[in-house]
């Protein structure tokens, strides 16, 4: 698997425009403010120096306070895997790609039927994603509809941890759940301190667009920050619905709202790892419903990545989805478009980019395979073109000369794998060979590849004694999930 790649070639804003966005963000925070529907948070903001209108639960922030709290947050956040090779450092213009969530339906791999997702699907998704080379970070992509709400957080995180050694990020649903997950991870790491040193999970909470901190999610944010668990505080302004229709204003909303979350975590636990985040998107003008396959989503996310770099904050970007209901051409072109825009902008972690479609409500195993391929190609593009003596190859050009061939030259064999992405899904056979192999389209080939991985017996990625320690301590964990 490729490590994160650096790239900042796509800049939606010039310097002047980025500054105008920043100034507007400061005006919104200073003049309009954020509605904070959680008492502890409002008090914390007030103590830190925000102007609080208690009647309306509004906190306003002057620019000095905003910049002080932003500067307190780390510019790079390390998301550890349980193997060294899966360690990811989010920040600056590094790029990586992963799953997202949280979908409530799954396309059953065996029947092809779209149905409510269950805990077994979370386990299967984690098993599949563990084997996808171009998926760097695993976000828990499904809601287990067959698990009681109070046990959901624990079961979701366990499904990731037991099946992959990649970093596991996930949304959380209850404060008790956050505590249980923290205890489970401490048990696996050896102690709470060991876990905090190398947190192999992170949590996602959210700020509500427009300009609102909800009581429940804010409690979760405070809880995660107290534990020192890396936390993402994304906002989801939707053009024309929860933000103005214009793309620049959508960016202003996302940055403003997510910054409010960042500031709160820094007040709760100064220096705690926090990630600026987005789920910004656009709407279908026929009924102003959320959509996730528009090219504008990629543009907005790329622009927000640029703002995150401006503030020196790590960024959780959004892309790689489709509004299609099946793994077809639309699923491919929409996903590829927004993933590519993000990675070319140096968006640190492109979430939602593997397996998600149908307005982000459904996960598909086949689409995971296809998106893994898109991710590999996009990462290759982000890597750019290496220019040095070896790659310019003057001596080779001279040696082969006019009319010659480079096919059997050592330079070709030496550089081919470094310079070119090798697809696993794309068909590059001549027509006759393709036909002889069944004349399958990409969706069918993706199905076969997913099946090949999931037909293997599950391999728990936790040592036996840790596994039994966790399942003994938390009998509400469903394992094995069938």
């Amino acid at each position, binding site marked *: 698997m490729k490590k994160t790649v650096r790239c900042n070639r796509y800049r939606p804003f010039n310097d002047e425009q980025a500054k105008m966005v920043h100034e507007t963000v400061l005006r919104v925070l200073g003049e309009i403010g954020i509605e904070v529907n959680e008492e502890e948070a409002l008090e914390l903001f007030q103590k830190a120096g925000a102007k609080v209108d208690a009647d309306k639960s509004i906190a306003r922030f002057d620019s000095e306070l905003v910049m002080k709290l932003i500067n307190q947050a780390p510019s790079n956040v390390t998301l550890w895997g349980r193997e060294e090779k899966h360690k990811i450092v989010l920040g600056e213009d590094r790029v990586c790609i992963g799953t997202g969530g949280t979908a409530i339906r799954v396309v059953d791999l065996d029947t092809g039927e779209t149905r409510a997702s269950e805990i077994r699907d979370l386990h299967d998704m984690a098993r599949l994603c563990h084997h996808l080379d171009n998926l760097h970070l695993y976000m828990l992509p499904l809601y287990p509809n067959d698990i009681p709400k109070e046990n959901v957080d624990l079961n979701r995180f366990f499904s990731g941890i037991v099946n992959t050694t990649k970093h596991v990020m996930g949304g959380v649903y209850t404060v008790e759940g956050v505590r249980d997950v923290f205890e489970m991870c401490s048990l696996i790491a050896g102690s709470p301190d060991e876990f905090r040193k190398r947190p192999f999970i992170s949590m996602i909470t959210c700020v509500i667009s427009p300009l609102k901190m909800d009581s429940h999610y804010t409690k979760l944010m405070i809880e995660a920050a107290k534990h020192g668990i890396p936390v993402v505080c994304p906002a989801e302004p939707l053009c024309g619905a929860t933000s103005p229709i214009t793309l620049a204003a959508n960016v202003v909303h996302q940055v403003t709202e997510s910054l409010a979350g960042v500031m709160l975590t820094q007040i709760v636990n100064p220096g705690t790892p926090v990630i600026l985040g987005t789920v910004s998107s656009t709407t279908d003008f026929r009924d102003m419903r959320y959509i996730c396959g528009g090219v504008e989503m990629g543009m907005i996310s790329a622009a927000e990545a640029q703002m995150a770099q401006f503030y020196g904050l790590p960024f959780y970007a959004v892309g790689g989805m489709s509004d299609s209901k099946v793994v077809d051409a639309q699923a491919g072109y929409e996903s590829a478009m927004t993933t590519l825009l993000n990675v070319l902008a140096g968006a640190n972690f492109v979430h939602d980019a593997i397996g998600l479609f149908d307005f982000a409500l459904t996960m598909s195993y086949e689409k995971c395979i296809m998106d893994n391929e898109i991710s590999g190609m996009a990462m290759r593009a982000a890597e750019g073109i290496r220019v040095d003596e070896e790659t310019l190859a003057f001596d080779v050009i001279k040696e082969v000369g006019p009319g010659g*061939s480079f*096919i*059997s030259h*050592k330079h*070709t*064999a030496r550089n*081919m794998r470094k310079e070119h992405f090798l697809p696993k899904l794309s068909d590059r056979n*001549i027509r*006759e*060979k393709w036909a002889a192999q069944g004349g399958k389209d990409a969706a069918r080939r993706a199905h076969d590849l997913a099946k090949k991985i999931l037909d293997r017996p599950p391999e728990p990625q936790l040592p036996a004694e840790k596994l039994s320690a966790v399942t003994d301590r938390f009998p509400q964990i469903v394992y094995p999930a069938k």
Partner: protein
Amino acid sequence: MTTNYENIAEAVRTGEEDVVQKLVHQALDRGDSPQAILDEALISAMDEVGQLFEQEEIFLPELLVAANAMKAGVEILKPLLGEDAIKSYGTVIIGTVQGDLHDIGKSLVSMMLERGGFKIIDLGTDVSPENFIQSLKDNPETKVLGMSALLTTTMPEMKTTIEALEKAGLRDKVKVIIGGAPVTNAFAQEIAADAYAPDAVAAKNIVRQLVGEED
């Protein structure tokens, strides 16, 4: 296999001609028989590389650098073994048909056949039926004639060449195999060629079948 042979095999796999040659000399210096070095080090390494290629673990340029490294070792052994000791499957005449200047695919097939144990007479590109026939007369031991075309407009030249072979009374003397991007198995049957190969590796295997030396 001795350590030295393992090292030779590794150098073949990675295409290190210099290393292969150095190690072959070392093996000879310590008194190993040339035949043993050929069979146990060079050929077995190349067989393994061939398998990796068929499993798509390695790719064509990697296969070719390995073949070149093997050849570098064989060059040293050849004078010691005598020509007869190195098995040849026979002579193949190959060329791109008249009016077509495409070279890469045809040359690749030449290379694969040569590494696969055939003696190759490569007539190059833009080869007229007369030139093919002349070459056949000059090399009466030839078992197979290979033709390549990359253009749909030059494909009919394959038919013209086969008809010319018939007229010259040579059609029964050789097997004819054709290939090239627009060429299909159906076209091969239509013009009464003996075989069609979709790519260079397939070409090697099919030509071996044509001469009755199936692997």
